[in-house]
Structure formats: structure tokens, C-alpha cells
């Protein structure tokens, strides 16, 4: 009886268990891992990926992709940093928010309203934004000129109640996003569109608009992430966001949101992203070179999804 309960529990929360074991393992071998400082460090480091992942989760639940977020992050970070010098921090933030919304809207227009394939459209956007960034910056790095005394430093560098501000912004956004997704009509529409687009249309849902707004959210959270990034680094290179789209997706998948759409959630995403963050941090603290974490990520993703699927089907291995 007890054994049965245990296996059932393991199946349902296998991922969390495995993660717990990993954390315990690292904590036993290094003494710096289990410190508040390190914990806050990780949360701060994942806050950028996490912010983006929150927006992308909406898109993924509608059954679509957004591979343009990495390039978008680069582009918007370059803008926010450069405009900080030109128009001041306030306007820079406004510009970047508008930028994120506009890019999201273009994606949303092509994918939601015209009905083009999301994978390819956002790939095209990835390439286009890379070009646009280089065009804007002329390939040069941009830097905030008075990094030491601008209130812009608040977003990426400050602490509030002993917690890093980026982590606070991240958690706050997550709470709001989770509320929107689970408790509002818009959230319900997102799930419906991902679950069955035709049936949603027959239910009077404007599926095109729903998809459109999901991409806008993805653009918006990426813009917020760019503000944090710009503030944290006080500068930007033209490659600063490279590869973020994949980390974000890996985190979302690890959290258990299905790429087929119709299911998933913000807290799952946060769990997935944080796990990735701790894996990276733990391995670095154990002294492994950074690329070992890639190998581990591979294994963890496959096992996590496999166990998760198995649990849903009522057996661990198909």
C-alpha cells in the first residue's frame, strides 16, 4: 500500500524529486551552494530568461513558437542602452516597451491574422532583428555613459528588502501572468485556442486576436527583460541575447508545458527555468566547465519529459 502511494507520488512529482536529489548532492559537495547569497544570485541570473519565458509560455500554450525572443532581447537591450544616453532613461524604457510590442505585433499579425507558420515566421524575425541590431549599432558596442549615477541601475543592480530587484520584478510578473492565465477570460481563450482552434472559433473566440495578443505579451516581457539586462550590464553587445530562445524553450519544456498547446502554466515554466539555473550554477560551483551543463540539460530534459508523459499515461516507461 505504502509502496504504491510512493510510486504514484514519484510519478507525479518525479521531476521535483530528481531536482531535490540534485540540489542535495551539490549542497553536500560544496559549502557555498546552500547559501542565501548564492540562491539570490541564481534567481537574479534566471530573472532575464524567466521574464522572457513567461511571455513565451502564453505563445506556447496557443500551440505556437517564438524563436525571435533572443534576437529581440539583443535588439531591445541595444536600444535601451543607447537611448539612455540619447533620450534619457525614462524615454529609453518607453521606446523599448513600444519596440517589444511592435515586434510582437508583427509576429502576431503574420502568425495570428495571416496564419503563417510560427516556427518559420519567428525564425525570419530572428534573422531580421539581428540585421536590424547591426544596422542600428553599426556593429559597435553600446554603453551607458554615466553608469554609476543613473536611477536606471535600479532594475538590474539594486536590492529591495534584501532581494535583488530583477528577481522581484520577475516574481511579480510571474504572479500577474499566472493570474491572467488561470483566472481571466483571456487566459481561458489562450488555453482554448491551443486546445482546439476550430472549436474556439465556433465558440465565438477571436482566435486570431488571441494569438496576436499572446505574441504581444511575448514581446512585452522580452522588453522588460531587455530593461533588466541593460541595467545589469549597463552596456550591450550585438550578441548579448544569442541563444536565449533555446534556453527559454528548454526551461518551458522542462517545466512540462506541452509544445502541442492547450496545457501548461506559468509556475511550471518558472520551475523549469529555475531548475536550469541551479543546474548551471551547481555544476559551475562543482568546478565543471560550463559546457558540461549542456550535456546535463540534454539528459534532464529527456528524462523529465519522458517521466512526465509516462505519468500522464499511467506508466513510467511506454
Amino acid at each position: 500500500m505504502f509502496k504504491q502511494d510512493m510510486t504514484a507520488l514519484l510519478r507525479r512529482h518525479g521531476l521535483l524529486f530528481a531536482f531535490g536529489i540534485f540540489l542535495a548532492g551539490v549542497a553536500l559537495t560544496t559549502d557555498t551552494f546552500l547559501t542565501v547569497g548564492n540562491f539570490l544570485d541564481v534567481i537574479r541570473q534566471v530573472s532575464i530568461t524567466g521574464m522572457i519565458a513567461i511571455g513565451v509560455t502564453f505563445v506556447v500554450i496557443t500551440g505556437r513558437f517564438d524563436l525571435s525572443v533572443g534576437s529581440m532581447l539583443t535588439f531591445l537591450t541595444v536600444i535601451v542602452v543607447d537611448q539612455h544616453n540619447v533620450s534619457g532613461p525614462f524615454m529609453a524604457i518607453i521606446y523599448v516597451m513600444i519596440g517589444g510590442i511592435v515586434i510582437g505585433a508583427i509576429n502576431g499579425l503574420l502568425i495570428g491574422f495571416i496564419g503563417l507558420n510560427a516556427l518559420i515566421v519567428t525564425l525570419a524575425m530572428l534573422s531580421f532583428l539581428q540585421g536590424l541590431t547591426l544596422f542600428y549599432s553599426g556593429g559597435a558596442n553600446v554603453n551607458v555613459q554615466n553608469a554609476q549615477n543613473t536611477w536606471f541601475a535600479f532594475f538590474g543592480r539594486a536590492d529591495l528588502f534584501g532581494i535583488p530587484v530583477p528577481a522581484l520584478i520577475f516574481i511579480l510578473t510571474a504572479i500577474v501572468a499566472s493570474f491572467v492565465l488561470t483566472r481571466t477570460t483571456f487566459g481561458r481563450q489562450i488555453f482554448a485556442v491551443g486546445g482546439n482552434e476550430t472549436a474556439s472559433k465556433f465558440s465565438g473566440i477571436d482566435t486570431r486576436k488571441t494569438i496576436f495578443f499572446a505574441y504581444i505579451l511575448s514581446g512585452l516581457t522580452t522588453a522588460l527583460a531587455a530593461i533588466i539586462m541593460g541595467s545589469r550590464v549597463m552596456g550591450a553587445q550585438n550578441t548579448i541575447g544569442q541563444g536565449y530562445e533555446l534556453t527559454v524553450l528548454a526551461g518551458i519544456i522542462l517545466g512540462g508545458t506541452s509544445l502541442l498547446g492547450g496545457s501548461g502554466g506559468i509556475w511550471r515554466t518558472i520551475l523549469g527555468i529555475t531548475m536550469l539555473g541551479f543546474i548551471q550554477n551547481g555544476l559551475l560551483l562543482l568546478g565543471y566547465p560550463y559546457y558540461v551543463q549542456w550535456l546535463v540539460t540534454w539528459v534532464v530534459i529527456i528524462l523529465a519529459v519522458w517521466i512526465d508523459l509516462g505519468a500522464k499515461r499511467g506508466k513510467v516507461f511506454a
Partner: protein
Amino acid sequence: MSTPNKVSFLTPIKNWLLRNHIWVFFLVVFGAFSLASPYFLTVNNLSNVLTQSAFIGILAIGMTLVMINGEIDLSVGAVLALASALAIGLQDSIGVWPAVFCGLLSGVALGALNGTIIALSGIHSFIVTLGALIGVRGLVFIYTGEDALMVSDFSYTEYPEIYLGPLSITAMIFLGLAFLFQWILTSTRHGREAYSVGDNIEAAHDAGINVKRNKIINFTICGGLAAVAGILLSMRLGTAEPNAGKIWELWTIIAVVLGGVRLTGGYGTLWMTIGGVLTLAVMRNGLRLLSTPNYVELMVMGAVLIMALLLDHFLSGISRKKTS
């Protein structure tokens, strides 16, 4: 029986265009660069383009097979890098050709691993191969110790410089593989099974087709071909870069989709894929000849991709709903 389908004289033309719009696109791009650059329409340059296209081209062959199955392989770039690293890194200890063979084997093995996980677990290939894209790159870095590996005997780099007229051996291998696999797709049991699996997997399963085996074979071929591309690249460069083939999976997918192969499966030919690969290669080459700044190239690539999608969309008149 209900009335037969209406057929107008335009239908065959429309059908042909629907299936081959990439070649129209190709001709337009080709013509435009012929006019724009005096160096474009030269035997030497075209021969280079063909060779340059071969790497993405060979990856695209495997990707097409996998996509006909209704799946995707994001790991090809990383697999290419691993094969190229092994082909070079092992030369000193076991000799050139055994090393090349090991490189090839690594691709086959990783492809088979991807395919097996996908078939057995039922996890979507996007996830499995996204994992592999990240993890195999890790393997490459562990194997190379982050450094580029170099051949000790540079005569290894002379192999790809064998030419048959304007055709390099690399280009010939690409075209040869494309024809071989096109024949396999149209004329063998495995090929027809691949379409039927991508088209209607339940029907295929009910008809006793071993769906899992078919997918595993295609992923294995895809991995093997990625290794072939990696080995050819190692011969071209004489060096194995740990970052070789980074984001090439994206270029490959772009080429294949540009050709008109559907991500939803069941539809596409290598004839279309070659069209996509060549269009892409000609565009990149042409833009370079015109000395276009890289940001223009990136922006043009993005715009062209969207245009190709729009063209396909309006030609077929049906909105592609969601994929993946």
C-alpha cells in the same frame, strides 16, 4: 457517385506552381543577381556556389526525410560538429579513414538515439532534438576541450579539391545523395512508408507499417547525413571547430521549408528541397558579391523567408493552421 471534380485548363499549371513555386523563385533570384553583378554568372562562381550549398544541402536531405515523417531534427548542426571533430581528432591515433569512419558512425549513432527516444517515448521530436542540439554540442566541447582541432597532415584538405569539370567532389556527393534519396522516397517501400507515416500515422499503423522503425531509420539517415556534411566540412577546413555548424539547423529548416516541404508531414520532395537549398545559397553568394553589409543580408534573408511563406500561402489559398 457525386459529380466529378471540376477541372479547368489552368489546373495543371496551378498544381505545378503549387508544388514547385520555389523554382520560379530561384529563377527570379538567379536572374536578378546575373544582372546585378558581373562576377555572378561565371563558371567559377557558380561552381563555388554549388560547393558552398552542399553542406546545408546534405543536411537538408536528411531533414526532408524527417519532415516527411512529420518530425523535425534540430540537432543536425551539433552532430555535424561532433563528426567533424572525431574525423580530425582521431586521425593521429587510428589513421585517416578509420577516423572518418568513426565520425560517420557517431552521426549514425546519434541519429539512431534520437529516433529511438522519439519512437519509444512518444516525446515530440522538437523536444528530443532540441535537447540533443544542446547536449551534443556539450559532447563536442568535452571532446575538443574547447579548442579547434587541426589535421596534422594537410593533404587531408586536398580531397575536396578534386573536380569533375566545374563540379567539385563535395557538390557531386550532395547531388548524388539527393538523387539517391529521391529515388528511395518514390520507389522503395521505405520511402512510401515515410510518406504514409507523416500523412496519416493511424492509417499507417493500422496497415501494419512499423511506424517506429520507419522513424528510427529516417532519424538515423538524418544523423548519418549530418556526419557526412561534417566530414566534408572537416576536409574543407582542415580543422574541426567546436562551434562548427552552429545555427545551421535553422538555415537547413529555412531551406527545406522555402522549398515547400511541409512541417506537418506527408508532403514534399527532394526536388523541392534542392530548390530551396540553391535559392538560399545563390542569395547568400550574390549578396556577398555585391559586397552587401551583413545587416542587409540578415534582413533580406528574413524578408525573403516571409515572402516565400506568403507566396505559398496565397498560392495554395488555404491558411496553414498550426503546425509542430
